[in-house]
């Protein structure tokens, strides 16, 4: 039998992004021992790349802001498909979670009176994003890394062992989660460095693995985003919700080809940047949908006045939620009004003085200068949609982040589902990580307390089977190159289950994904187990394929267009579909999708909206059932 390093922890947190680190901090503060396992080095998770900010209704810049407005914006952005309880917790708790970071040493940009500064972002009624220039994610992740060090230093002082309660396993990839009688018993993985296997006996696992963007070629996501947590949750008996909803960020770089997809932060638009087509027209005014008509400016003059007088003017349409802006750009390019490289222009140069641009958007300046040789203080950028974020994720109970199906399984951050409904607002992810990362850590600790201290152990035969499966691509000969299959998978998803979808194409995709699954069983890789990226990709492919199948199957069933799911054969939003969540489950070979009612929003939260607005989203019956309007 292959040698396997064996550990036992109260909680294993899979992922060292914002959600994972926050969960680990909380579980440790509850007295639990925690292993943090991450595919990259510590501090390199996706969270580090987040630019714009973390949304929290602190009301530092506009005192009218409060949790109710944040809740309303979030539900509106998600087109009312959000799990209302998650959106409520998130809106209520974000400010405390951001303030808490200051006690860990974070240094946000400040307002004149010394509070945390907040910036405008798409879909947020008031300036709400706590930020540090355009490197907020870096501040977040580094702050939490440093908080973990601080906890370890306390443990060192108290127990003489800094790793007694929190130990980080870096460049270690979890491959399998084990359960017995519907409860978690542990997980196994391998060190990327050495290829050696490792197993954790544990009763509680927090999934914080992020997203699935690597199913697409044009994406802002890194190699890590292969949907591992999503796939492992399903294989362990858990479920995914809302997988048909993917966020295509409207502004990715389109040139040069090698960086196509890399993100251009929404802060460019929040700070005054405008979108223009090849005719020089600010086209977003033509794309304001009816549901948003009341909140958005109709003329350039009004839009421009808003930056200085937000109380008396409506917002510029460039700040519509991302799905709207992405579709608009897509239409302009299709209509032949795109740039030479197939995007549109994003112009900040003519809107702000150069020194302001350098101050507010330093890393964007840097990125364009170094990668595209474009000086954004002088020229417009070329941008187009890029696959950015998956709204869908592991179905959980909002207050505890626990899976309703697998005892001891928790999920937080991008891998979680429900919070953002059909479309996430910018800035709502970083705050989501903090709010639900903490809740997942708490949830895991409470679960452990409730089950008592009974030991858990992975079944040895299961463990051996998982090791054998992991070694298969190395033992096989004459199989296919995993890079080829990955390339073909990205082509299928990009061409057939992309930003605009229809039944025929998605059906075609499902057939093609099946064929890819068969081919993936037959991969072989050269080399040995030591830091072998070909082998790593071969293993990740299994997860990517299962997740792509979930996206495609759910996308075929939902016959409407809403948020991050656009069907050109069903171009409008259908109130009947607002009542339905699509749930994916799988035995590891195929995905099955079922329908489940969306939880009913309680009256006190519904009363935050006016009836006229609810009419746009709800069925006749739902409206009749509503109590009379109070005002």
């Amino acid at each position, binding site marked *: 039998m292959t040698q396997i390093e064996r550990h036992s922890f109260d909680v294993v947190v899979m992922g060292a992004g914002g959600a994972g680190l926050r969960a680990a901090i909380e579980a440790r503060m509850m007295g639990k021992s925690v292993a943090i396992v991450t595919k990259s*080095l510590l501090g390199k998770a996706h969270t580090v790349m987040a630019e714009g900010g973390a949304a929290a209704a602190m009301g530092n810049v506009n005192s009218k802001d409060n949790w109710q407005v944040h809740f309303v914006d979030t539900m509106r952005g998600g087109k009312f498909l959000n799990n209302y309880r998650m959106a409520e917790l998130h809106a209520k708790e974000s400010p405390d979670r951001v303030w808490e970071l200051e006690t860990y040493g974070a240094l946000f940009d400040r307002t004149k009176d010394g509070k945390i500064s907040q910036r405008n972002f798409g879909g947020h009624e008031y300036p709400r994003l706590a930020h540090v220039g355009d490197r907020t994610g870096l501040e977040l992740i580094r702050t939490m890394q440093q908080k973990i060090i601080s906890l370890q230093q306390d443990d060192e002082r108290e127990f003489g062992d800094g790793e007694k309660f929190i130990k980080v396993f870096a460049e270690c990839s979890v491959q399998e989660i084990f359960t017995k009688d519907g409860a978690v018993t542990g997980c196994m993985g391998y060190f990327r460095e050495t290829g050696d296997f490792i197993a954790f006996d544990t009763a509680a696992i927090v999934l914080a693995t992020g997203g699935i963007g690597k199913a697409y070629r044009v994406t802002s996501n890194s190699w890590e985003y292969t949907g591992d947590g999503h796939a492992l949750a399903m294989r362990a008996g858990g479920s995914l919700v809302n997988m048909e909803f993917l966020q295509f960020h409207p502004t990715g770089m389109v040139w040069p080809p090698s960086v196509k997809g890399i993100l251009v932060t929404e802060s460019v638009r929040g700070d005054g940047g405008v979108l223009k087509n090849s005719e020089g027209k600010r086209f977003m005014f033509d794309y304001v949908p009816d549901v948003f008509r009341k909140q958005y400016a109709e003329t350039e003059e009004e839009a421009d006045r808003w930056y200085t007088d937000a109380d008396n003017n409506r917002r510029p349409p460039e700040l519509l939620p991302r799905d709207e802006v992405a579709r608009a750009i897509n239409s302009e390019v299709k209509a032949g009004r795109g740039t030479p490289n197939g995007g549109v222009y994003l112009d900040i140069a003519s809107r702000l003085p150069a020194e302001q641009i350098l101050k507010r958007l330093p890393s964007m300046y840097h990125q364009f200068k170094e990668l595209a040789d474009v000086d954004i203080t002088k020229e417009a950028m070329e941008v187009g949609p890029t696959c950015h974020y998956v709204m869908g994720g592991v179905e959980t109970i909002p207050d505890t982040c626990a899976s309703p199906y697998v005892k001891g399984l928790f999920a937080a951050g991008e891998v979680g589902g429900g919070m953002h409904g059909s479309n996430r607002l910018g800035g709502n992810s970083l705050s989501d990580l903090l709010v639900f990362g903490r809740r997942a850590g708490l949830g895991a600790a409470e679960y452990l307390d409730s089950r008592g201290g009974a030991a858990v152990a992975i079944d040895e035969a299961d463990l051996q089977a998982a090791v054998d499966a992991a070694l298969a691509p190395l033992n096989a000969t004459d199989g296919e190159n995993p890079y080829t299959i990955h390339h073909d998978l990205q082509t299928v998803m990009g061409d057939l289950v992309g930003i605009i979808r229809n039944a025929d194409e998605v059906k075609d995709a499902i057939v093609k994904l099946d064929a890819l699954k068969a081919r993936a069983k037959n991969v072989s890789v050269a080399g040995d187990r030591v830091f072998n990226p070909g082998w790593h990709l071969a293993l990740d492919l299994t997860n990517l394929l299962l997740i792509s199948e979930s996206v495609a199957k759910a996308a075929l069933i939902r016959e409407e267009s809403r948020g991050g799911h656009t069907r050109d054969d069903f171009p409008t939003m259908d109130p009947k579909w607002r009542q339905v969540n699509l749930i994916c489950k799988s035995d590891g070979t195929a995905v099955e999708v079922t329908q489940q009612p969306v939880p009913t929003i309680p009256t006190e939260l519904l009363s935050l909206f006016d009836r006229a607005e609810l009419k746009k989203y709800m069925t006749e019956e739902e409206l009749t059932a509503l109590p009379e309007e109070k005002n």
Partner: protein
Amino acid sequence: MGYKAKFRVYRGDGEQGGLENYEVDVNEGEVVLDIIHRLQATQTPDLAVRWNCKAGKCGSCSAEVNGKPRLLCMTRMSTFDENETITVTPMRAFPVIRDLVTNVSFNYTKARQIPAFAPPTDIKAGDYRMQQIDVERSQEFRKCIECFLCQDTCHVVRDHEENKESFAGPRFFIRAAELDMHPLDARTDRKSFAKAEQGLGMCNITKCCTDVCPEHIKITDNAIIPMKERVVDTKYDPVVFIGKILRRKPRETGKI
């Protein structure tokens, strides 16, 4: 406008290995990391390299290009002559694991040795008040993406394994400076700690670290030199002076 470039890449582990030659396609606008990825996808699938963001934000892809410490994702192919042979090697100051991947655990160990931020005991979460001008100095250092290129280039450890024990390196001098300049950090011994425990005295201000920093952090001028000062009188530092009027942090009286 594609062409075939000549590459020499280190292949091997810490014990044995050497430079191998490759010819590989290059397209317009590409960076060195793209070429390494093309090698992986077409010629040598087990070539090991770290990367994440491809945009200079995560600090994963550090290596040496023609002997210079660089981020592979931010090194454009257009900066080289088409006939030039481009040599890519792992960072020299750290043990090689495989190909371009090195063991950088030295840095994580050093990070754990610096006393963490000490929150003020008399201010509740939510009540922190700081002026922008006061936080800016520390913010410069918090831009650090932990690429460890400055650590790699610093001659104190680059070819002197024996110094690693007592020398934290420029990345952690800026961490110390960041905390020293943090308007609300309750500790007052950051400077003496840097001198006594981090080996600040071994730095002889060559500025090589500043030169390679992809975040353009002025490591030497803005962190190391101020940290080396013996006694800091707030009067000599107008920026700090203005800020610290609001909340005066007791200054360390440097004795070392």
